């Protein structure tokens, strides 16, 4: 009833009742466009969620592997850390699945609404052409009212459905954005595996240490039952390697400082070019 009143108000402005048919038909086509865009928007949101779920899944698998490897080298603490992170991801994944189901339901409803509206718009067009061809302006009014009945109600309902879908997708997008940020910030690590997280780094360090030990053991065995290995020497090699990193990081801040003076120089040069242009603008 509310929707009908709104449509009628817009129609009051038109003189020839037959014009209202064209006017309404135009509005119907616009709404149909809007529903179709709505369906596409919901589908886009749904696909984005699917993509994120895949990324989270990959990440969860990776953490499981890490936990496995950590256990193999006897680092239960690392394994625990990896599994803790994975359970955090699992929570996100479960939420995404619920949202995915909601979006899918919304998409189906909207698709169905779009089909229904399309059929009604087609029926209206047929009626409209008949009325325009058959009746004079004076005779047309009752026929027009008949033609309007149903379509405006449908339009109201579809309008609500679009509104709903828009609200839902907006919510989803805000959430999806938050997960994207989380993925980008490295908190969930890079799914492409280009950036190494701390667990991977530590596991690799352990692996290289044990590789060295294995190699040593092989060499000693080849030499013929040498004395006990000296892991201290190997451990002693690592601190220098790690110590090399801080200096390279420390070298970055000065280079950033060096850039900022250049940036400060830029505005004056722009400012010099700008003044000639502005007076010209003012004169015209």
């Amino acid at each position: 009833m509310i929707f009908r009143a709104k449509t009628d108000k817009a129609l009051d402005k038109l003189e020839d009742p037959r014009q209202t048919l064209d006017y309404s038909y135009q509005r119907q086509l616009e709404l149909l466009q809007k529903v179709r865009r709505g369906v596409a928007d919901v589908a886009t949101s749904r696909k984005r969620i699917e993509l994120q779920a895949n990324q989270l899944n990959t990440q969860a698998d990776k953490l499981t592997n890490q936990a496995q490897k950590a256990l193999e080298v006897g680092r239960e603490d690392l394994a625990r850390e990896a599994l803790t992170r994975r359970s955090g991801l699992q929570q996100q994944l479960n939420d995404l699945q619920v949202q995915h189901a909601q979006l899918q339901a919304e998409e189906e409803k909207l698709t169905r609404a779009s089909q229904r509206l399309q059929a009604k718009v087609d029926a209206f067009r047929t009626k409209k052409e008949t009325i325009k061809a058959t009746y004079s302006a004076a005779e047309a009014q009752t026929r027009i009212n008949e033609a309007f009945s149903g379509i405006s109600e449908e339009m109201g309902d579809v309008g609500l459905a679009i509104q709903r879908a828009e609200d839902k997708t907006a919510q989803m997008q805000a959430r999806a954005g938050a997960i994207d940020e989380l993925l980008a910030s490295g908190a969930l690590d890079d799914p492409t595996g280009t950036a190494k997280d701390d667990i991977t780094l530590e596991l690799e360090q352990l692996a290289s240490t044990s590789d060295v030990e294995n190699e040593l053991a092989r060499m000693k065995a080849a030499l013929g039952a040498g004395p006990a290995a000296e892991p201290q020497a190997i451990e002693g090699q690592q601190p220098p390697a790690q110590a090399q990193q801080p200096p390279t990081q420390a070298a970055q801040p000065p280079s950033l400082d060096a850039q900022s003076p250049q940036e400060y120089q830029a505005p004056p040069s722009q400012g010099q070019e700008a003044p000639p242009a502005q007076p010209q603008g003012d004169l015209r």
Partner: protein
Amino acid sequence: MIVRILNEGQWHLTDDAVRGLNSFDDAVEQAVAAGDQEQLTKALHTLLDRIRTTGSRVADEELEDSDLILPAADSTLEDVQQLLSESEEGLIPG
């Protein structure tokens, strides 16, 4: 009688079938009065299921006004309160 379920479409219902809906309508009203969302969802599902099973779908290309407009199955308390405030006899008159 033609009944619209918002977001779903329209159904043809016989007058007898409509009368049979009143007890289900009461359940919806009670849930809204109690502010119980869970109860409301349950009552709405029952009511709408009843319409879908006792009624016959209005064809997509039919242009007909509805005699009744009912909220969607997943409506919130707020949605239904708003619809009810526009009608003093519950969702279904009589």
